[in-house]
């Protein structure tokens, strides 16, 4: 038996192997060519379109088998990718609220997504009610968070379509009373109470975001707004920045 099963004559084996390798190479190259044609000709899917199929966070939580925080971390990575992809392409954020709802349901104490999601929804998704809902959800889940109270005040301060200074001041004041509220929250509350649309206040608020945020996208947003405000203050043409503050829409291409 072993004689029969031994390898055939070496040159014959080599020849068969060479033929097999050549066939593999030819088929492989042809397959690559086909997939390149497919990639170039078939309609491209919307970036991260699968996010529409995320089940609700409440349903996903038990399915994560005790690893809800890890699942939230992965969802957070996808959410940031989704935001980045759409900011660079169609500037449409159809699934943004859904995605942030999923991940904040998975990890209700994960504060970053509330803030980032709310500002992205309001400023670039033009959906202030959704941003409002997301922040209120965060505050309900984290009632002792001074950071969320402060950011909610700021969100009202730059509310698209018209700032809500009264709301902003109330949330700044609450942030100032909470243990981890930013130390200058009270000052912002006072500014909001006293001034309606002061460019200097806006500059301070954005600077606060730039210095304290750990999110580079948020810091970028703050820096852009600061540059715009500084130009307006320096040139004395405040009306454009004022209009900007009244309808703070950030569209980036």
């Amino acid at each position, binding site marked *: 038996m*072993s004689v029969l099963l031994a390898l055939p004559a070496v040159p014959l084996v080599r020849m*068969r192997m060479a033929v097999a390798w050549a066939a593999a190479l030819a088929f492989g190259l042809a397959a690559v060519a086909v*997939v390149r044609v497919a990639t170039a000709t078939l309609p491209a899917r919307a970036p991260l379109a699968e996010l529409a199929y995320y089940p609700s966070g409440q349903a996903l939580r038990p399915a994560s088998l005790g690893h809800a925080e890890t699942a939230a971390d992965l969802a957070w990575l996808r959410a940031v990718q989704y935001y980045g992809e759409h900011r660079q392409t169609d500037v449409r954020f159809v699934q943004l609220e859904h995605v942030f709802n999923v991940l904040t349901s998975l990890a209700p104490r994960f504060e970053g997504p509330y803030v980032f999601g709310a500002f992205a929804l309001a400023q670039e998704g033009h959906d202030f009610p959704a941003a409002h809902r997301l922040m209120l959800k965060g505050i309900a889940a984290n009632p002792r968070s001074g950071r969320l109270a402060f950011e909610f005040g700021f969100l009202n301060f730059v509310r698209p379509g018209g700032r809500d200074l009264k709301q902003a001041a109330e949330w700044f004041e609450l942030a100032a009373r909470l243990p981890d509220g930013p130390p200058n929250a009270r000052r912002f509350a006072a500014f909001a109470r006293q001034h309606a649309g002061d460019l200097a206040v806006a500059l301070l608020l954005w600077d606060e975001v730039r210095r304290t945020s750990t999110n580079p996208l948020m810091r970028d947003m703050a820096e852009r707004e600061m540059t715009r405000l500084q130009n307006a203050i320096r040139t004395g043409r405040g009306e454009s920045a004022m209009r900007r503050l009244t309808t703070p829409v950030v569209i980036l291409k």
Partner: protein
Amino acid sequence: MNALLIAQNTFREAVRDRVLAGILIGGLVLMALTRVGSVLAMGEDLRLTVDLGLSSISLLGLLVILLVGTSLVAKEIERKTIFNLLSRPLPRPVYLIGKWAGLTGALALVALVLGTALALLVTALGSPQHIPAIAQATYLAVLELSLLTSLAVLFSALSTPVLSALYTLGMFLAGQWCDDLRRLAVKLPAGAREVLATIADVLPNLPLFNMRSLAAAGDVTGLAHLGLATGYAVLYCACALALASAAFESRDFK
């Protein structure tokens, strides 16, 4: 002819395997369970049924490949039944092709049963207009499974069943990210871009076989998509089987 005989034998063996029967029953139970879950779907129960049904065809098929396909060749070597086959005038590539074709046939049968069950369920729910989309999605799932089977045969010819299963699973996961890799490659500097694009080319481009999001909405895909997917699957399978043959030719069973 010899390949056909081996394919028939592998098909018969796979169909008689309890794993296949268990997975088939599991798939049917899963589809029935989507009706229970539909209560919570807030009006999206049809989409849930179609989406989960099609996903179950793909994922349960993968499970069959991991449990059965990756030990196709190794089991024969372990039982020494391969000696009886290879001592005959049977070219080794023919043996591998037969094994691949037999298991692909069994997987196609599973997909056909589950796809038909899904189509019947959707018809019972009053949406027979989804049937063409389900048929197309099932066909693409069979192509995807045949491609993964060819990889399982390749790894099975090279390695142990456990390692083959891990390699096949790894290729499945990496293959699902091909589109993401291509998108990422575009944003990288020149050298890294070429490397990543090449990796994306070599990996099985599995998103090409995924039309579940279309089917869930009842939409069908174009003939160009079906044609390209078929051509790609045929060529990729041929490439993987040729590599398996090259590896298998050099194996000594003394």
